[in-house]
């Protein structure tokens, strides 16, 4: 089956494009075809995965070149894929969660006239994302990288009749493009430096290059990763991206696409191993983002934006882990997968709530929903317990390991990660309180109800995965499994035993949870968001997304706008003005010469005679001289 792994990409791609071209007749079955294509990829992925599991540990990477994509001079890029441990896990995550979200969307998008198109875009996304993780060349990876960007653009702006959605889509694409500059330059540097852009070769050759080359490569790749994974300083698009339909937020902006940056760092482990400066940059970015995201998550009243802040924060954890080198790579991937489960679960749960609340996203209009939506509540609770790291749930294992490794690297980094865990407990409890507990603050005419089965079954499945995902860590399976790809690391001994640290982490989380519980149960929650002036600086800054948009506006957008206006002026008056000015001066000169042309025949005759006279005299003069 491995030699047919390209079907993973081809089937959803063909299905997606076909659905787009098909037209109205496809509306009846479009969603079914889309879901079938995604399920097909999942099954193929499963078969491939078990095939490599069945192989020897050292022989679990399968590569195949389909055709030569580009060849000119020394530049050679093969359209080739690699199915190894890392991409295998990703394939299962993408197609597995992806298929559940396809099923969920059948119900969620039922009343949308453009449902066929929605499924087409989802399929294109699945195909692109699989291209990204299966690529064995950086340029092919870039193809998938931009493909998911396109799908994300189309899906954020799916309800394009809303100006805000269209603007958010454009913003997401443009901010991602800034990251892509880094990515593109990194690939060019690889070509100039190593003469190849194949992932495996670059990550080996980098050892022979200078450290500064490796650092440059690492930083450029990190810039790309920041764009896609919404890491500081390119984080601003993710919260706006919540304009898209909720299943999109779950699939693209929580479970899969935004983790592509982490994948890129882990996949380029050779580059990052070769440069400590690049690794430190990754750690810094991860740490800052994990705290910033958590901060934003605490302040937002929009359930999707609060979850988006949380996503930023959790990806910050993964980045942090990836920056820790071989010790952290496997944990980054582990957290990435468990996060894929529980965050998709939480987002779909939020979608289910919105479904019952007439598409209201304001948590201040919720309250006491646990009775009205029992299934949603239970599954959401599982996601909640997983993300705060309640012992036994998947998030407990994955986050624990990251914090532990962070402490192993440096006390301060570990402390930051620990504080983040506490804040996670705070904002998630706040969300639970405002949504499912406290008192009813529903708008009139809103009658919350449980969602149809086609939506709740995927929730149940994801809820179960949120609980059981930690099983991958049993006996350190995932670290051993990934070791051939990401390299081996000696386990660092901490000053305190690991179990004590786990207890400590759980205690910190419990403090966050308790604080939030006390705050939000002591007095009734206002049904409207309090004005900016009446809340603390922390809330205000969090609501304004730590003024990231304002910063971009001041530093990038406004100067560019002014520059553009100035250049438009300069082009008209300066560059073109010079040319037209030249033409005008010529015209003026002609006007001057025109004056003597009176139009009287006799004056012309006189000048002819005068002229001949001069000529004759000149000839005579020449003769005599």
């Amino acid at each position, binding site marked *: 089956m491995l030699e047919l792994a390209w079907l993973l990409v081809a089937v959803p791609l063909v299905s997606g494009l076909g659905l787009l071209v098909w037209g109205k007749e496809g509306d009846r079955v479009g969603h079914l075809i889309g879901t079938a294509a995604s399920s097909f990829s999942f099954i193929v992925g499963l078969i491939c995965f078990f095939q490599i599991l069945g192989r020897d540990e050292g022989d679990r990477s399968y590569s195949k070149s389909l055709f030569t994509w580009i060849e000119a001079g020394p530049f050679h890029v093969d359209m080739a894929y690699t199915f190894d441990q890392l991409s295998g896990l990703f394939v299962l995550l993408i197609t597995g969660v992806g298929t559940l979200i396809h099923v969920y969307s059948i119900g969620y998008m039922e009343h949308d006239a453009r449902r066929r198109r929605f499924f087409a875009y989802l399929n294109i996304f699945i195909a692109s994302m699989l291209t990204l993780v299966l690529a064995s060349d950086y340029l092919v990876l870039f193809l998938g990288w931009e493909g998911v960007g396109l799908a994300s653009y189309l899906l954020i702006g799916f309800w394009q009749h809303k100006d805000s959605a269209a603007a958010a889509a454009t913003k997401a694409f443009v901010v991602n493009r800034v990251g892509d500059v880094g990515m593109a330059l990194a690939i060019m540097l690889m070509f100039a430096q190593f003469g190849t852009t194949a992932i495996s070769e670059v990550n080996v050759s980098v050892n022979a290059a200078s450290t500064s080359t490796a650092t440059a490569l690492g930083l450029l790749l990190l810039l790309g990763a920041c764009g896609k994974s919404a890491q500081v300083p390119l984080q601003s698009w993710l919260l706006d991206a919540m304009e898209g339909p909720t299943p999109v937020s779950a699939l693209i902006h929580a479970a899969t696409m935004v983790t592509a940056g982490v994948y890129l760092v882990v996949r380029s482990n050779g580059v990052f191993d070769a440069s400590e400066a690049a690794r430190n940059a990754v750690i810094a970015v991860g740490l800052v983002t994990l705290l910033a995201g958590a901060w934003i998550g605490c302040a937002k009243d929009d359930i999707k934006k609060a979850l988006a802040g949380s996503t930023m924060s959790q990806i910050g954890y993964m980045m942090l882990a990836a920056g820790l080198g071989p010790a952290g790579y496997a944990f980054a991937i582990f957290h990435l997968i468990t996060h894929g489960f529980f965050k998709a679960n939480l987002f779909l749960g939020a979608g289910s709530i919105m479904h019952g609340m007439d598409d209201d996203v304001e948590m201040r209009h919720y309250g006491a929903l646990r009775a009205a939506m029992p299934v949603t509540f239970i599954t959401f609770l599982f996601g909640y317990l997983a993300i705060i790291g309640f012992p036994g749930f998947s998030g407990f294992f994955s986050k624990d390991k990251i914090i532990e490794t962070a402490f192993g690297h440096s006390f301060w980094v570990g402390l930051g990660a620990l504080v983040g865990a506490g804040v996670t407990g705070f904002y998630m409890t706040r969300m639970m309180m405002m949504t499912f507990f406290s008192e009813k603050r529903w708008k009139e005419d809103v009658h919350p109800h449980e969602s149809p089965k086609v939506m709740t079954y995927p929730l149940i499945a994801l809820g179960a995965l949120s609980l059981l995902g930690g099983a991958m860590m049993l006996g350190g399976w995932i670290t051993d499994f990934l070791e051939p790809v990401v390299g081996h690391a000696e386990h660092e001994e901490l000053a305190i035993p690991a179990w004590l640290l786990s207890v400590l982490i759980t205690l910190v989380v419990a403090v966050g949870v308790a604080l939030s519980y006390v705050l939000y149960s002591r007095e009734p929650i206002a049904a409207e968001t309090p004005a900016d002036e009446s809340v603390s600086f922390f809330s205000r800054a969090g609501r304004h997304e730590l003024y990231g948009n304002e910063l971009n506006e001041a530093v990038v957008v406004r100067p560019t706008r002014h520059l553009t206006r100035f250049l438009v002026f300069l082009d008209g008056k300066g560059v073109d003005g010079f040319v037209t000015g030249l033409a005008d001066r010529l015209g003026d000169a002609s006007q001057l010469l025109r004056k003597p*042309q*009176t*139009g*009287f*025949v*006799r004056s012309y*005759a*006189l000048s002819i*005679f005068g002229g001949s006279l001069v000529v004759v005299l000149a000839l005579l003069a020449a003769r005599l001289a």
Partner: protein
Amino acid sequence: MTEYITLSMILFTIGAVGVLVRRNAIVVFMCVELMLNATNLALVAFSRQHGNLDGQVAAFFVMVVAAAEVVVGLAIIVSIYRTRRTTTVDEASLLKL
């Protein structure tokens, strides 16, 4: 010999002055003819003096060209007269815009 040349010069000068001072297109035209014939005279005279036929040949050319010119020129003058009811050259200054 000198007489012929003097006559030619006088004729030419009369023609030239006529072209410059007269306004009637027909008269101007006749003055141009006068200048041409003055030139012819000079050509023939020099031809005779040098015993060389080239000058006479040139004179014939001038006559032929003059004939053609008369045809075109008169046609123009007639059509100007038709449209403008005048043959004064100063009136026809359209070329200036």
